[in-house]
């Protein structure tokens, strides 16, 4: 007997349920700590977040180098000692600087909490920025940079951001070879003392949180205060470049990387959830229009996707693919064709039902386990939003109709305004 005689199981409604709300605890110096207590293993994830991203830098590489240098030597430990100790206690850590924020994520075994917090305080608040380590880091970064310049997807993405946000804004400007020689310890110390401060800091703790966590956080971080440094407001302006179509030449490349998109609204705008749903239909999941057409029907690419993302000062939408050179123009034409179709033809009920349920399932996955909950919380918190954003989003997924999608496509995917970047 074949299973084809068996009927498809009934699909039940997907319920987001109640999103666990973090508990807020405020350290003596006013630093907010958000606690998400859940999970099955004796392990905790702590994210220390600072408003210290690229957005605030006057020169390229300053925010990221400041962040990377934090573990390169502190008042009480050398870089080697810091790394050896963190590894000894089985800790995973990740320093990262993004466009708006920077900081460190630490995942640690609960029984080592106190030891690790001491090391994190060294890293965040007592770094020395030793010149020898800095020079070595900049040489390494230059070497990584050169390798990245050989990758068409990196070339295309960098050009995309420069084109849509402009050469004069940290969101857009590219890094060049000579930037690596301009970084000195004093620049990083200055950046650190301005932006790695208590007034600019938050902590998100998730996992099976040990009872003494809040006390320990207070004793290690509760007495750190702002340095009274006058911070001049950045005068950078977001302004896309006039040229909409750019090809970055990479002789000998077998494939071209394509990036098509433009600046758009961000998470704070009421249309944002609708735009995310539109994006999903266009290129946000495996059965999206772009995947079905350009990969599954024509076989032009291993993968094509579109995304809508948010920075503090702007959102952006971006379609990406890597395609054999002979098919690049054909793929680009198909991308525009799919956008026009969404602007003119209403989305059918079956397709919309699939998208609704897939996205609701996605939301359930976003809250599966303490670490996922923490990341989802952070991504609304950093826009001064809270979990009500997700309830609104879920509601929009359930209620949006074909006409609204068509109208969003007309408003937000004006083809004349899209940038078209290729590298290859």
């Amino acid at each position, binding site marked *: *007997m074949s*299973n*084809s005689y*068996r009927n*498809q*199981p009934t*699909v*039940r409604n*997907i319920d987001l*349920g109640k999103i666990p709300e973090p508990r807020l605890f405020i350290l003596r110096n006013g630093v907010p700590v958000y606690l998400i207590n*859940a*999970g*099955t*293993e*004796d*392990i905790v994830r702590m994210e220390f977040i600072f408003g210290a991203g690229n957005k605030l830098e006057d020169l390229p590489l300053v925010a990221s180098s400041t962040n990377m240098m934090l*573990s390169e030597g502190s008042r009480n430990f050398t*870089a*080697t000692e810091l*790394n*050896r100790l*963190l*590894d*000894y206690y*089985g*800790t*995973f850590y990740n320093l990262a600087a993004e466009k708006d924020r920077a900081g460190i994520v630490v*995942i640690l*075994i609960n029984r080592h909490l106190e030891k690790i917090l001491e090391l994190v305080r060294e890293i965040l608040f007592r770094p020395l920025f030793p010149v020898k380590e800095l020079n070595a880091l900049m040489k*390494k970064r230059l*070497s990584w940079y*050169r*390798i990245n310049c*050989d990758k*068409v997807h990196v070339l295309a993405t960098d050009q995309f951001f420069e084109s849509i946000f402009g050469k004069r804004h940290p969101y857009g400007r590219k890094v060049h070879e000579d930037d690596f020689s301009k970084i000195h310890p004093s620049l990083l110390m200055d950046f650190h003392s301005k932006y790695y401060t208590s007034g600019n800091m938050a902590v998100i703790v998730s996992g099976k949180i040990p009872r003494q966590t809040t006390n320990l956080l207070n004793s290690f971080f509760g007495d750190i205060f702002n340095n009274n440094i006058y911070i001049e407001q950045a005068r950078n302006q977001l302004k896309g470049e006039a040229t909409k179509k750019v090809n970055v030449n990479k002789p000998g490349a*077998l*494939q071209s990387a394509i990036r098509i998109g433009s600046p758009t609204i961000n998470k704070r705008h009421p249309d944002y959830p609708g735009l995310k749903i539109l994006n999903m239909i266009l290129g946000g*999941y*495996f*059965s999206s229009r772009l995947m079905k057409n350009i*990969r*599954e*029907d024509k*076989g*032009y690419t*291993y993968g094509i996707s579109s995304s809508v993302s948010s920075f503090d000062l702007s959102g952006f939408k971006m379609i990406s693919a*890597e395609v*054999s050179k002979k098919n690049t123009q054909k793929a680009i034409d198909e991308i525009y064709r799919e956008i026009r179709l969404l602007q003119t033809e209403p989305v059918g009920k079956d397709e919309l*039902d*699939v*998208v609704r*349920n*897939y996205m609701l*399932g*996605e939301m*359930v*996955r976003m809250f*599966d*386990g303490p*670490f996922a909950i923490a990341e989802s919380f952070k991504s609304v918190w950093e826009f001064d939003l809270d979990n009500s954003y997700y309830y609104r989003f879920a509601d929009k997924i359930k209620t949006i109709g074909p006409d609204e999608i068509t109208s969003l496509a007309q408003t937000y995917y004006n083809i004349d305004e899209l940038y078209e970047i290729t590298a290859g």
Partner: protein
Amino acid sequence: MIKFYRFSLENGLRVLVHEDKSSPLVAMNILYDVGSRDENPESTGLAHLFEHLMFGGTSAIPDYDKPLQLAGGENNAFTNSDITDYYLTVPETNIETGFWLESDRMSGLDFSHKNLETQKSVVIEEFYQRYLNQPYGDAMLLLKPMAYKIHPYRWMTIGRDISHVENVNLDEVKDFFYSHYAPNNAILTLTGNISPDRAFMLANKWFSTVSKRMIKPRKLPEEPVQNEERRMTVERDVPATALYKGWHIGKRDSKDYYVLDLITDLLAGGESGRLYTKLVREKKLFSEINAYLTSDIDPGMVILYGRLMKGIDIQYAEESVNKILSNLKERYPAEKEMEKVKNKFESSTILSNTNILNKAMNISFYELLGNPDLINNEVDEYKKTDRKMVAEVSQKFLIPTNCSTLYYISTRKD
């Protein structure tokens, strides 16, 4: 402690279940005991191409993805030298859709010419994107055949040559399915918000009707012991010269495996690893350096690779690597350093167990190795390793006559 239950259906399908009520989801993992090692040397890349074809639909369910997405699910798959693994997660109320889909495509595929041709060109684009159009992308395509002369590990999962994928025909594809895809060649694991009773009931309901098949017996040639140093130099237009080294090791289930894994951690675990500390941080010879085990079931390899800083002589860089290896053979590591790498194994195990999908994949793989209890006691295997074993195992494997070395020289002038 990960508690799991195990049973087999009459058709030979093995089913394992681990309930974790803290998750709103269920993860379903199906491991097929087939990988690129089971390919004909003249038709490589088929196992991986086949993974793509598994999403091409059946006569009963023409589109695999849509019904799963309608159930709120998400899925993917991977192929390596040993296994092909399909996995999905779905909100717990809709897990039955997963059973329906997976049992259906285990029963039989709709082999269409159009699907085969499209997926061939998708896979060829993948070949370009991941291997040929990436700096250093072909390094492993070069190193593997240096180390393996007759065992199928000599080719990568993507295939030995693009033409192999181009030339596959529908008959070969059908034959591959019926000789490898069967309940008696698969392991089904469920983790997350599902009780063992429900899982077994559903497994019975959906999979017991899939018939057992004749599996093509695996008769792989044993790789002869390597007795000479193997070296190759290639020139490429890349920004920096790179060094690759690979040593043969034993099988995945040999005792030495854990010692070797610990050795690669002493060498390259985190920023405090010996290679990074000595050669990146102190001597500044490399911009990055790493070492790892291939984790193959048949005798695999230790792979070490590094990208050199500008102006560094590759022979000098290699000698410096060799010095660090000699040190492992001649001097016992400090107890503290041993504890460090063991602690790191413990915490990575705990971290991996925070995710239901990881747990499902791990349980399936350990079951394939014949010991699902490893999900709980593999850490003990690492704990048993002592300093003496580190030196002995290094002396046994990390020697020049067991090594293949690739110099990947940058021709770029600037």
